[in-house]
């Protein structure tokens, strides 16, 4: 199929970004695609999250099968840097002498955004493997570490112009940027939830990305929206609850505690629903492409089962089909 090959999930922590990336990968695999799901190990000691979502052992730097049609990989910035430099220098001995001194390694790692660039360079290599000739993958799904990471990547041209200017590295950085900012190849998805700060942050981030010189294709995914809430009309305050005939009936049947609990639960859900409307309204005003993924309760059968349920929800939300279509 023709269309985008790279999906990058980003967004504030706590919005379910990794879970959504995993579910999207699974959902695409069910459509018959070969999907590579990637996470970045910017800090090597942190074990990563994606493997657990498939009930698999921690991921390594070679893709491993984690579910039908889905392979998982963990891109380690240091390993990517080594491969990159080796690819450029070609003399292993020279590489060892120069780059494997601890002082040089740590120093190199400091250069602004170098680690991020290396992760992306690796990702780009995987993306190249989606070519018609190779067809190793059909789709790469990347769980990007944070909004700061993505913003940095999209500001690359300025960095290149001001610091790097010339050399192999500058040329490669430009290629990475070309991949990210090409709406026909890449889609960036900002994951948010129906709460004040995450929703505001998603909007601000979207606007910031739009103000860049060459805006990439960016969409927003509102995650964990509780659905199937029944309309019960206006709810009374706890003090006036006894004057509400339906609540009075519940009290008559099961007692005051039941009435209080039912009212509290309904008020909380109603608040959640109002928040969804308010935040969706705000996000719609941005004109950003927007998808809504319902809240999926945890599965008692574990995280892999949960990911499978979330994949159903992702499919129902229309996320896969619409983001994979290349823009006209």
């Amino acid at each position, binding site marked *: 199929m023709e269309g985008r090959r790279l999906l990058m999930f980003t967004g504030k922590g706590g919005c379910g970004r990794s879970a959504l990336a995993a579910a999207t990968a699974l959902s695409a695999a069910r459509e018959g695609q070969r999907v590579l799901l990637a996470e970045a190990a910017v800090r090597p000691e*942190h074990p990563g999250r994606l493997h657990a979502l498939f009930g698999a052992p921690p991921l390594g730097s070679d893709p491993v099968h984690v579910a039908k049609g889905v392979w998982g990989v963990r891109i380690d910035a240091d390993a990517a840097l080594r491969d990159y430099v080796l690819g450029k220098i070609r003399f292993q001995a020279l590489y060892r*002498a120069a780059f494997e001194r601890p002082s040089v390694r740590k120093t190199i790692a400091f250069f602004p*955004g170098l680690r991020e660039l290396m992760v992306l360079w690796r990702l780009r290599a995987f993306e190249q493997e989606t070519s018609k000739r190779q067809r190793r993958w059909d789709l790469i799904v990347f769980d990007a570490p944070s909004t700061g990471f993505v913003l940095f990547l999209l500001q690359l041209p300025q960095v290149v112009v001001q*610091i*790097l200017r010339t050399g192999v*590295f500058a040329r490669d950085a430009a290629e990475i940027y070309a991949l990210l900012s090409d709406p026909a190849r890449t889609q960036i998805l900002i994951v948010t939830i129906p709460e*004040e700060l995450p929703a505001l942050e998603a909007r601000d981030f979207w606007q910031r990305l739009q103000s860049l010189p060459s805006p990439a294709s960016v969409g927003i995914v509102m995650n964990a929206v509780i659905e199937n809430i029944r309309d019960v009309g206006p709810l009374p305050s706890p003090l006036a609850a006894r004057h509400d005939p339906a609540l009075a009936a519940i009290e008559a049947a099961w007692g005051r505690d039941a009435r209080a609990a*039912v009212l*509290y639960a309904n008020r909380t859900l109603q608040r959640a629903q109002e928040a969804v409307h308010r935040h969706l309204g705000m996000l719609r005003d941005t004109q950003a492409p927007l998808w809504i993924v319902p809240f999926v309760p945890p599965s008692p059968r574990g995280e892999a089962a949960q990911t499978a349920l979330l994949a159903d929800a992702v499919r129902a939300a229309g996320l896969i089909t619409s983001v994979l279509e290349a823009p006209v």
Partner: protein
Amino acid sequence: MSLLSLLKEKRVVICTGSGGVGKTTTSAALAIQGAALGRKTLVLTIDPARRLADALGIATLDHSPRRVPEATLRAAGRGPHGTLDAMMLDAKAALDDLVHRYAPSKRARDTILANPIYRHGSRALIENPDYLAMETVQSLEAEGNWDLLVVDTPPTRHALDFFSAARRMVEFLERNRFLALMTPRGRRSLVGERVLGIGMEVLTKVIARVTGSQLLDAARDFFLAFEEMFEGFRERAARMDELLRSDAASAVIVTTPEPHALAEARLLHAAFIAERIPFGAFIVNRVATDALPESILRTWSAGDPVRSKALAQALPGLAGNVRERASALMDNYLLYRILVERDRNALSGLADLGIAPNRMHVVPLLDKEVVRVEGLRRFLRCLKKASGSNPFARMERSAGDNG
């Protein structure tokens, strides 16, 4: 020690936790409580939470402390005995402050500020501002204008980064002194330092082949300029480490019942013990709570037909529309119950941490967003109650208060 005694006695209370768990709100609520206890309090937030500024009744939150009006403290249900100031970390301003304070000369300062590595490296420091937050805390502490600093920590990939920020900065600068040696000019200016192994010229050429030589030059200039500021950094890092581990400081862990937030909270708790950072309290935010007896619940969750039957039996002769609404209210209740189950399971997993009951606080999922001042007031009311060793038991007894 309870949360209230922490706010009464400590000089620095640091709110840590994964991103998106309500650290900023928690910091604001704790600071209001600190002021109510009669202390001159300052809250330092990291997120540009505009709504928080509104809730506190101040026009803007920025890098200078602003006084929160007494009216706000009263509206939050706390008669003001002390005072409350609020400020937001502006990482760029904090960094420039730092350079201005420590650069030994105007020339060194200008060299640093104009250096392209500084300009982009500073972006990394600003996007990931652990170090700058820590630095700001220390200057505020040194100013001595406040009895209590309540600190919101940056949404780093790993919340513990905040505590090691100073040390990492020193290590980083130490390592990178090496860079200054990599060019002929750099070596001339650092006579006496010896380099072993392969020749410097070769090494430099190899590295430059990949990075381009401008990058190396800029990096060398940067570290040469920073060299002179180095002692200042080392001293401050040592003082920060000392402050964080002293009796004057306390770290509070904020989390939600979300699995990854809890996982991060557990890591933090373990790390505080290992690193001897005084642990203050555990706050679980946005917990779906419930007050309904299990016996009733069992009838309800047995399934739809039974539920309607139970309702029909319990309420014969109920008008159709009232029964319909009662039934809808109960359906919603069952939907909510899914959240309650999720949170109950998540929290029961915390039992093995062995946290003292008076250090465990659960804040229910409120039926209003905590962005206005009355929201902060309710948040505080919930916070003040320690939840006991089984947060759920306590919560179910008190959930009536939340309605």
